[in-house]
């Protein structure tokens, strides 16, 4: 047999083997095996990520500057916390108005429980926008849990293994988040464009949205908790002949520089199944 023919046959056999694995994985039969292989890999990944981050920090900042940077980051965290508090207070004020209009109806708002974890890598495929975090089902993380930073929402858990999990970022075109505008109270649906821009669509034409207005999760649909900051309005597109207006959003989180995230562990997303006729 000619060498090239035997090579094609060999390649065909390997492709069949890989296709078999692909079918098995689509059926969910390989999840335990994937988890088993990922266990040591996630350890190595965390170790490398931490060492690289430490080396980068050491190389980029002299020692005295390092302490100042630490102080600045503490102050930044404090500012972020205070901003969060202002948002929450404004939200409460707006809510009080709504609630008094609804005859003192009180809504229970449970405290969120957070689990901090480091980001151990990005999706290897440059066509997908997701992150890997260094915690998985071993520490109670499950599919659908929202993920935030101190600046705002970054996405939700979409794949879980024992030691690591994959987060679908809100900048992924497949993600959709129900949001509301803080001042105008208009609702909309946030989705990422294929070029990575974030747009809020399906906004009522009568709503008056202003530039720099804060966009928060609305909690509609039950996928995300209410009142998590998402971003600010960059510009608004409103055309009289269209049913809805759109807004371009500047995300509150810098998605290129996420090192630690918080997973909201006590939030159970609603599983809405499609009804069959």
């Amino acid at each position, binding site marked *: 047999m000619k060498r*090239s023919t035997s*090579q*094609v046959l*060999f*390649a065909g056999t*390997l*492709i069949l*083997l*890989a*296709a*078999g*694995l*692909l079918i098995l*994985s*689509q059926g969910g039969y*390989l999840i335990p095996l*994937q988890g088993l*292989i*990922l266990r040591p*890999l996630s350890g*190595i*990944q965390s170790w*490398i*990520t931490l060492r*690289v981050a430490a080396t980068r920090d050491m190389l980029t900042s002299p020692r005295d500057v390092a302490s100042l940077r630490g102080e600045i980051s503490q102050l930044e965290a404090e500012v972020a916390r205070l901003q969060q508090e202002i948002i929450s207070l404004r939200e409460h004020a707006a809510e009080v108005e709504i609630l008094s209009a609804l005859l003192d109806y009180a809504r229970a708002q449970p405290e969120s429980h957070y689990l901090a974890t480091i980001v*151990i*890598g*990005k*999706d*290897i*495929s*440059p*066509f*997908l926008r*997701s992150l*890997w975090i260094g915690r998985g089902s071993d520490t109670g993380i499950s599919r659908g849990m929202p993920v935030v930073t101190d600046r705002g929402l970054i996405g939700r858990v*979409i*794949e879980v293994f024992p030691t690591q999990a*994959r987060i*679908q970022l809100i900048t992924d*075109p*497949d993600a959709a988040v129900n949001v509301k505008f803080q001042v105008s109270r208009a609702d909309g649906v946030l989705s990422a*464009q*294929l*070029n990575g821009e974030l747009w809020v669509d399906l906004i009522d034409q009568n709503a008056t949205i202003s530039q720099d207005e804060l966009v928060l999760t609305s909690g509609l649909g039950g996928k995300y908790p209410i009142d998590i900051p998402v971003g600010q309005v960059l510009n608004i597109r409103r055309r009289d002949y269209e049913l809805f207006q759109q807004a371009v959003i500047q995300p509150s989180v810098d998605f*290129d520089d996420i090192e630690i995230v918080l997973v909201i562990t006590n939030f159970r997303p609603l599983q809405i199944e499609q009804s069959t006729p």
Partner: protein
Amino acid sequence: MVYLIGVPLLALLAVFQSAILSHLNFLDGRPDLVLLAVVGWSLTGRTEEAMIWGVIGGLFLDLLSGLPFGSSAIILVLVALMVSLSEGRFWEAHLFMPLSVTLVASLIFYGLGMVTVLLIGRELDMSYALTRIVLPSTFLNLILALPASQLAAGLRDRIFPPEVEI
């Protein structure tokens, strides 16, 4: 022996790609170390081993990616097969051989990657993907092509020293 070195090496390259190279973006592109390893080993003439490296490396990539498990393995076997058809061993000494093979291999790899993304029902902005991901990634792969092929040749000579007639 070659798999004793190859399997951990491919695992490490996949982890490096996810943990470190993802921060070194050129536009939205990044070099693909596993692809370079498979192409480099194919160019040494050990095609069947390179195909197996393709399967193993592809599975490691798929473990750390949202793409279906096994899809990158299929693509990398096809890449290794394509390199074998170029008679890489014969032209190995030629400077442009690794460059031209890496160029074609990268375009096939990202092209089939985009097809996979479309097959799983996701939308893709072709012009954005080409200009911001495929071309920058291919450029970075080309920069690393020569060192990768030299390292692969060095590894081959260590594992399989050339026989010398006295």
